[in-house]
């Protein structure tokens, strides 16, 4: 292998690694705050990419009815709870926020000339109909069992994954889609050719990671999430709503997922079921970070990307085997070095 090939593979590895890093951060965040191992994380990637693909060709976002239906379901559930608690005054806000808003968005999007919109606006439209699925899924699937064991949450998570894959097939069809890149073309650096989209991916991933770091360090919501992650009961005693923290981190996870989808869809074809494998590789990255450390998770994900790229050169038939085998030594190391804390005694 000469240096040009090595560079090329490194570039490919970093590009995929950047996406895995974003997803691993979302996974760590969701796990730290809600103890949910978020298997459906990858589905948001596919939903984001495929919704964007629909929007750029001038079709209405296929997920809009799902957003509206789930919104109404959330309004009903929240409404019933409010009535039971005798807080009828909260009803109008609940209905407006959960049901009226998505319907209004749907009406607006019907009036927009989707195909003629500028690229950033199209991205916003696509995000607007995928990101709400984050908090909606949390409210309907996870909030009712928020205090249950990690195992039960994992089972719910697997169920949500299968539901979302199935619905993805229904909404987007079995064919894959690609979207135009942010900027066409690329530049030649020495012997290697780099697509502009690759630079966008790595750049935006770095920005998003920095943004998330700032959010956690300096904003009040970020601090609330961190507090919940450190000690749920303690945070609640301090007046931080666990439900709000859950919804917030699922919103972030959905946003990161959907945006990752929009980032990779120009360089690869995304199918309704593509997300699972991408999410799983992000998960390997998150495992390297012990599901708690953000920097380690990001570094682990880059490692996964590089390992994947180089093994596809040396032994393409065993690529996935090599990538997923990585977690065995990592898990061994972690179980030998960390003191085991039983999940149920944790809080």
């Amino acid at each position, binding site marked *: 292998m000469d240096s040009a090939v090595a560079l*090329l593979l490194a570039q490919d590895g970093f590009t995929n690694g950047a996406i895995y890093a974003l997803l691993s951060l979302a996974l760590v965040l969701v796990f730290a705050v809600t103890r949910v191992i978020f298997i459906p994380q990858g589905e948001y990637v596919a939903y984001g990419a495929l919704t964007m693909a629909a929007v750029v060709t001038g079709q209405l976002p296929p997920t809009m009815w799902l957003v509206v239906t789930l919104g109404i379901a959330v309004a009903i559930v929240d409404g019933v709870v409010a009535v039971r608690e005798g807080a009828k005054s909260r009803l109008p806000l609940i209905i407006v926020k959960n049901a009226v808003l998505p319907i209004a968005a749907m009406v607006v999007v019907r009036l927009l000339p989707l195909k003629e919109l500028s690229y950033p606006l199209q991205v916003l439209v696509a995000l607007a109909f995928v990101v709400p699925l984050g908090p909606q899924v949390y409210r309907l699937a996870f909030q009712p069992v928020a205090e249950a064991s990690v195992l039960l949450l994992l089972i719910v998570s697997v169920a949500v994954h299968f539901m979302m894959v199935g619905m993805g097939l229904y909404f987007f069809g079995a064919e894959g889609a690609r979207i135009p890149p942010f900027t066409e073309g690329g530049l030649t650096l020495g012997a290697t050719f780099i697509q502009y989209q690759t630079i966008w991916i790595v750049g935006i991933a770095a920005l998003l990671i920095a943004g998330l770091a700032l959010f956690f360090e300096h904003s009040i919501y970020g601090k609330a999430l961190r507090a919940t992650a450190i000690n749920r009961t303690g945070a609640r005693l301090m007046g931080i709503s666990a439900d709000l923290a859950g919804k917030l981190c699922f919103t972030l996870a959905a946003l990161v997922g959907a945006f990752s989808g929009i980032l990779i869809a120009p360089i690869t074809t995304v199918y309704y079921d593509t997300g699972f494998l991408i999410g799983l590789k992000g998960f390997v990255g998150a495992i390297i970070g012990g599901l708690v450390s953000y920097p380690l998770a990001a570094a682990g994900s880059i490692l996964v990307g590089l390992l994947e790229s180089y093994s596809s050169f040396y032994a393409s038939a065993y690529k996935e085997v090599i990538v997923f085998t990585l977690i065995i030594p990592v898990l061994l190391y972690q179980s030998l070095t960390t003191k085991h804390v039983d999940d149920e005694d944790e809080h």
Partner: protein
Amino acid sequence: MKVKLSIKPLVIALSLFGATAALADITIGVNVSATGPAAVLGGPQKNTTQLFPTSIGGEKINWIVLDDASDPTATAKNVSKLLTENKVDVLFSGTTTPGVMATAGPAADTKTPLIALAPNRLDGEKFKWTFTMPQPIGLMAEPLLEHAKSKGYKTIGFLGYHPDAYGEVWIKAMEALSPKYGMTFGPIEGFARTDTSVTGQAVKLISVKPDAVLVVASGSPAAMAHSTLAERGYKGQIYQTHGAPSPAFLKNGGKAVENGILVAGPLLEWDQLTDSHPSKKVGGEYAKAYETKFGKDTLSSFGGHIWDAWAITSRAIPVALKKAKPGTPEFRAALRDAIESEREIAGAHGVFNMSPTDHSGFDKRARVLLQVQGGTFKVVTQ
């Protein structure tokens, strides 16, 4: 409780009545994967069943169409229902190879002819009752190797689904056939349908510099492999299999797939066939009927296989009717024998001449070479 009990005999009587009424009709059971991961293949097959006639030679045909959602367990359930409850005379089943595998056993046990819609490898009684519609891989590999030999190529690399069933049968066929054409086959580089990048594999192949590369994948992943090779500066000939040709391949491949050579069944480019090709008429009729009902540019090569299943069955039914009554084991056996002995049955994908040892029945007329020129497929005259 009493009311329920008194209804029961009535229901039994009604169902018996229904069963006897249906005895004189021909019953055809269809099991395809119209939903789930294989929906790209099975969807058009299910649509095609809507185009089939409801009678033949004055005999009424009952069509029972079931969907197995790409799940072999559901296939087995559907097939046992079709065989034991509906007592079908012939079965069209198995959009995917596992689907065929789940069907072949029960079909052979009940001595019901099965027309398989996916490639398979069977023996004994299972082989005796199963006829396979898609072209055997060896048949499709030959014209590619002939083309490569005519251009003086000596080495051909592989970039495709591996490890994977589709990739594996191609690797076996190429390893078996390449020496006959004086060709060295390899290296073998694999990827998966859901992979987001094939850069590593492409760079590896380019560093070995084979004269040609065979891409074995479907639709848009095939286009991704093709365009990655082109982008990374591969200058040799790129070949594609019959898994690739589709609107998605051209759309996602764009300029990068220009001049690529693909092997395909004759259906997709039926209008470019010579008038003497028997599939021009059958394929044209099917293409027009399908696109009238389901819209322009919806035709798929996979739907053609179930159209051919009907082409064969409709030819065999009149022969079998002379020997036995539908709904009887004798009719099913007669139907099987007729499918095996009828000659020159024109289908959308070629011409069938089955024999006791050959249950595909295809010859050279079941394949064409296509070249991408100006963003469309052009038939290459061999």
